[in-house]
């Protein structure tokens, strides 16, 4: 794959896949860190977190480059798979009404969010999501609900590009099938010739 148009098409597909898709959300400004901890293998319900890392987290990182996102895969299979979201509330006096304490923790239906205050000077909210035995879309929904993230919609040009790329792919597949037929036919003829030549040479000798 050397020609420039092919290279650009493949690149555009990949970049659009990073910009759009499941997980393309802009997080609110007060989130400063997302940390995930799960096991290196999927036994024990760790497939959801792993898929989340490969798909959704990539898009989240693209749209929120300032948020530190780390992954720790040293847990044992039986340990919990936990995502912790760290908020900043830089001014302690404002923390009572700041949106970091945010989406009414009392009314929250999820039983797994905890509120901790670590330091007297900088109150840091850490909320956790339990990821074990959950699919990556469920984890994403939970995160979006918790943080009130805004979805990133595809712009008109991007929709247009996606459509053009898809069309090109379909056309390419058809052309590829046709040329495969032609090549197979030519190859068969060539092989038959070679075989016949070989037999003739064997007979003549």
């Amino acid at each position, binding site marked *: 794959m050397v020609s420039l148009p092919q290279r*650009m098409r493949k690149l*555009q597909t990949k970049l659009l896949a990073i910009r759009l898709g499941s997980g393309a959300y802009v997080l609110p400004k007060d989130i400063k860190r997302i940390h995930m901890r799960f096991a290196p293998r999927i036994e024990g319900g760790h497939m959801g977190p792993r898929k989340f*890392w490969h798909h959704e987290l*990539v898009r989240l990182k693209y749209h929120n*480059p300032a948020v530190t*996102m780390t992954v720790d895969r040293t847990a044992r299979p039986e340990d919990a798979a936990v995502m912790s979201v760290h908020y900043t509330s830089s001014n302690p006096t404002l923390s009572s009404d700041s949106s970091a304490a945010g989406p009414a923790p009392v009314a929250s239906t999820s039983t797994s969010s905890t509120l901790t205050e670590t330091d007297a000077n900088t109150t840091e909210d850490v909320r956790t999501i339990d990821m074990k035995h959950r699919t990556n879309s469920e984890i994403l929904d939970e995160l979006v609900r918790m943080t009130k993230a805004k979805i990133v919609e595809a712009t008109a040009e991007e929709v247009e590009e996606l459509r053009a790329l898809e069309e090109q792919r379909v056309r390419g597949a058809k052309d590829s099938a046709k040329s495969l037929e032609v090549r197979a036919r030519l190859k*068969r003829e060539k092989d*038959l010739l070679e075989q016949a*030549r070989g037999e003739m040479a064997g007979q003549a000798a």
Partner: protein
Amino acid sequence: MAAPRYCPSCLSLASQTTTTLFRASTPRISPFTPPPQSLLQQPNQLRAASQNALKYRRKDVPASQKRKKARSTFLVPDLRNAIQFSLVEAMRYLRASEVGRPPTSSKYELHLRLRTPKNGAVVRNRLRLPHPVKTDLRICVIAPSDSPQGLAAKAAGAVIVGEEEIFLAIKEGRVEFDRCLCHTDSLALLQKANLGRILGPKGLMPSVKTNTVVKDVGASVREMAGASEYRERFGVVRMAIGQLGFSAEEMQRNIRAFVESVKRDMQGISDQTAKDLHEVVLSSTNGPGLSLNGSFSSGEDGGVGARDVSTL
């Protein structure tokens, strides 16, 4: 592997094991499947074996076999149609692709595509980047640990310095370093210790030929720890240019140093072969390759600045 064998009578694909039965028999053309024209003509001609017919047989070679004049330079793409990125944009995509990986394990790499003839001299050199990529090279120095040489080595960053204790450790099997240097005065001791059996196959045995027996150990340790080597392969120079944890400014400095060094090398051999820098592509261990347009950051990036890209 032999070309696929076709059954001579029905011209279908036959398996290797059964065709031996048919080898001696003449090919009989089945009336149901008309064989291709070429096959029909040739065996009859050869069977006729008339010298005249052979002499006047058409000799034109099919187009695919005609000798093509090979290109003498590597192809370069026309960059007017290329989508290019500023450094900050490119780093944003690459950081997203590498999210969650340990910051020292994923590396950025730079590919410089050159416009050059195929058989000319190649660019090949070592360079010390302003921000070295692989910094955890463990160097062991064989010199008396209390001599000025030994102390200089420790100051320059050698992990293990010493003589007898190193020999003992190696004999026990504890080889905890990646490179080994030896001071010229300690060479005799090294030979006596007979470590060639253990270090030799690993490529760690200090010797005069590999410039690992030195007088000035401090300078050698520093040079060995920092230098990265690059060479041109098939018209492209590739080198690791940063770790995931580097900031945008550090990357910019590294990229500048590398491109400048390659340009200087190209000028040096320009009298023999004309070389020209054509395209610069930044990539990473798990990310796509993005062609750079030379600018640090573009204005309309949704407000993402160099600082945002520099946080992990």
